[in-house]
């Protein structure tokens, strides 16, 4: 199979983009990626767009064709990919498959979401549809903060962990985000302030939750041969992309302290890359809530069950620690424009592997991204490597 590389990236600031639409945001990130990679629009052979609530919140269906038209990509195949919060990674995986198979040499991947301008209750209801809406838990009124609160309660109980340790995830995320000019939250938070946030779904409070953000990110995916022939500078290798499915509602979960799709996607990706989790130098994981970061790290095998909480408290996941996690600020601080998230995780890894990151991990050679949709109904784990 052909080697696949990332030739360039773009990203809008995450946060509130009052005057800009979903398509405006996606086009901005895409144009940045094209400019940065020196790939011309007429060289792009396929477009994959990850997005989730464009129709439900913004009234924009059919977003891939609209984006292709905005970018002047001609009549190339353009496809929108929807897998809830994993939409961006799923779009990336489709692009990698298209390039790897030889179907195309150059694919543009964008992920975008426009979420502001609605009440929190409206956004919460819209996101809550990312599971089996015929399920008992949906009928019971379980929201996503509620679902992760169920996991958090069980985690704290099973491992005898103090609720205050969750704040360490938030404090780290905000510290990293404060150094990332594109992050939604630009200020650090103290542990005391993080613990004093109002309750959203106990035991989770405001600082345990990712914000409602607008934003977009984009990547150019090319074959290694095409990148070499076109003088692409500092390409990054796509070593593997693993995808797995899992329970589409909480009542189908065997355990409330792990998401099996994430573990399966990680096993698949690491096997394909012929690497072990210990080989990973920097990780971007799906910390939609503080508890989700601990569970992610344990599903990945980076820490034993019940150990991620204490590892976080000990600083193992800070930049400079044994495994820096979410140096971008993560979903908690960088923000979580749903469809953009998976692509933005990869943008951060590309920057790390090119020594361009705001919170640079020294000598990072291998980066891993972990992106989860719904209640773990889908997960994608991607492994990138510094080009030889």
């Amino acid at each position: 199979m052909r080697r696949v590389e990332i030739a360039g990236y773009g990203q809008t600031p995450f946060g509130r983009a009052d005057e800009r639409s979903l398509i405006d945001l996606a086009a901005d990130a895409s144009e940045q990626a094209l400019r940065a990679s020196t790939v011309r629009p007429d060289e792009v052979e396929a477009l994959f767009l990850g997005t989730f609530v464009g129709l439900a919140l913004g009234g924009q269906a059919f977003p891939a064709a609209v984006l292709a038209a905005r970018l002047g990509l001609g009549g190339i195949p353009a496809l929108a990919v929807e897998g809830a919060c994993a939409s961006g990674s799923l779009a990336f995986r489709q692009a990698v498959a298209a390039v790897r198979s030889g179907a195309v040499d150059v694919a543009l991947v964008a992920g975008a979401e426009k979420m502001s301008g609605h009440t929190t209750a409206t956004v919460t209801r819209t996101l809550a549809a990312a599971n089996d809406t015929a399920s008992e838990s949906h009928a019971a009124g379980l929201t996503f903060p509620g679902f992760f609160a169920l996991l958090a309660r069980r985690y704290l109980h099973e491992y005898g962990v103090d609720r205050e340790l969750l704040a360490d995830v938030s404090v780290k995320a905000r510290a990293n985000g404060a150094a990332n000019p594109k992050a939604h939250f630009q200020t650090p938070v103290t542990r005391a302030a993080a613990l004093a946030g109002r309750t959203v779904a106990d035991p989770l409070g405001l600082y345990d939750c990712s914000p409602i953000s607008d934003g977009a990110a984009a990547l150019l995916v090319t074959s290694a041969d095409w990148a070499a022939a076109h003088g692409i500078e500092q390409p990054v290798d796509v070593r593997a992309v693993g995808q797995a499915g899992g329970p589409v509602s909480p009542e189908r979960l065997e355990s409330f302290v792990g998401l099996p799709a994430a573990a399966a996607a990680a096993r698949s990706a690491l096997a394909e890359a012929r690497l072990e989790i210990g080989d990973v130098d920097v990780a971007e994981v799906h910390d939609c809530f503080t508890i989700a970061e601990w569970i992610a790290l344990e599903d990945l095998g980076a820490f034993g069950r019940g150990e991620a909480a204490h590892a976080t408290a000990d600083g193992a996941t800070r930049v400079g620690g044994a495994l820096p996690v979410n140096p971008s600020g993560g979903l908690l601080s960088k923000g979580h424009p749903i469809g953009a998230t998976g692509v933005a995780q990869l943008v951060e890894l590309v920057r790390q592997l090119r020594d361009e990151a705001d919170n640079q991990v020294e000598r990072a050679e291998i980066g891993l991204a972990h992106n989860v949709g719904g209640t773990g109904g889908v997960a994608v784990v991607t492994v990138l490597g510094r080009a030889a």
Partner: protein
Amino acid sequence: MSGTVHTFTTIQLGADGPLEAPYAVVVVDLDGGGRRTVRVDGDTGWLAIGARAELTGGSARPG
């Protein structure tokens, strides 16, 4: 039906729809096997992991 509480939460920030926050959601391991996810009507002070629960219709109360 009766069982023990596996996990629970009280949702303070709700979604658009008929439900008025706050309301509690509990996951109950049934005595005969299987699991239910239902709301808790009324007092929630009894909720604790391992507490006994009685399920009637779509809601749970202390068992």
